[in-house]
């Protein structure tokens, strides 16, 4: 099983070889409420670590999605654009956002483990 890490901006990232799959966390979807719109980066575009990579909107407001690592977008998930509600239903699996060919694996080092993220999420919302 590949390793999953988490960012302070509530993204998850799963690395397999040099391809990272990125999405938003269950906790993020709970904060956002019903997600009704998703915008993804363009395939082939190059993203910097912590740069804007897309947008999600709930009925209430729009929120940016950031990428926790830099790289080139190799694939995006059209099903979350067509049916944004699956982001609420299964955010850390089916509703991934995009895949990157990452350029610098060391950027993963500063990210959090599952336990660290759960603790962080709990502390920042209470």
């Amino acid at each position, binding site marked *: 099983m590949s390793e999953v890490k988490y960012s302070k901006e509530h993204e998850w990232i799963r690395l397999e070889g040099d391809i990272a799959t990125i999405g938003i966390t269950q906790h993020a979807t709970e904060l956002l409420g019903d997600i009704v719109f998703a915008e993804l980066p363009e395939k082939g575009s190059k993203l910097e670590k912590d740069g804007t990579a897309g947008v999600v909107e*709930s*009925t*209430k407001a729009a929120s940016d999605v950031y990428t926790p690592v830099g790289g080139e977008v190799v694939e995006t998930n059209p099903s979350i654009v067509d049916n944004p509600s699956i982001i609420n239903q299964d955010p850390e699996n089916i509703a991934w956002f995009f895949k990157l060919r990452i350029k610098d694996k060391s950027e993963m080092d500063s990210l959090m483990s599952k336990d660290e993220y759960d603790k962080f999420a709990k502390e920042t919302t209470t």
Partner: protein
Amino acid sequence: METKKTSLYQLHQDYNAKFVEFAGYQMPIQYSEGIVEEHKFTRNHSGIFDVSHMGQLFIYGGDELIRDLEKIFPLDLKNLKLNHSKYSFLMDKDAGIQDDLIITKINEGFLIILNAACKDNDFKILKELLKEKYKMVLDENRSLIAIQGPKSSQILNDVIDGVKDLNFMSGNWFLFDNQKVYITRSGYTGEDGFEISISNNFVSKLTRELIDKGSKLVGLGARDTLRLEAGLCLYGNDLDKEKTPVEANLKWAISKERISKGDFIGSDIIIKQLNNGVTKIRVGIKPEGRVIAREKTKIFNQSDAHIGEITSGTFGPSVNGPVAMGYVENEFSKKNTKVFLEVRGKKHAASICSLPFYKKSYVKGSNE
């Protein structure tokens, strides 16, 4: 200033409400099922809204009061029947809208329902305009709840017998637990429904009984998506002092008889605008794609000229797509006019459309 709580605060907590501060009150924005489910439940069944933050202004008086109020509101109040309601606005001398409201003729005078954020200022303005001649009570001892949606009539009638015989935009006094409650058949969702004015001490009991009969609590989030789909204005967004009722496309609410006399506050401007037209006007706007254009989004025409601004925009769960309204220059206000909305630096196609976005379908199953 400390935020106020309504008498239903504990009940909201019991139902896991997420709270937001609105007009100085802690109000539920949603409960555990979320805005989309609450919206759909209201459209298909019945939703209960706590709107106790709104002002309930009782003004007591007879014929003289009617004459004095006609100097303020563009309504034919002398012909307003007992227990009938009208939508109207409080304007300044330039016909700028200071608040929009519902006024109901009651036995001893009038009941006016005011927006929460405006009610204290409205009270001050009205007191001054009426020269303190009448007893005026902005009643803090009464709560206000709305029950909206196709099943609401049956549900409320099971608790308070007789309400289902009320006609739209009319009301009456009823008894709940030996308490006098004033109920009008009205609302702000585009659905059939009722608004209930009841003593703070009994509002939780009534609400719990309505929930037991099958209605559900619905937060301000869904109230906003419901009213926008229904094409209804939100004061502070779609209406404010910079806009007149004619610009807001609400001239249907101005009495023709009163315009012919023209003796109410703001009437000069209203008559001028009705005769000469306006430069900007409120319209419905339907984005072509899925991008949501929210308030303050700039509107452009096909030659890329800035022609207006969105005042309310969200995702409409029953429309299953984005919906918006805003003000555009009059020449671009025709239905089906193509416009562009600038969202996050990109222009997205949209078209001007008629309101409401959602029309009630009265086709129902035979065994509900």
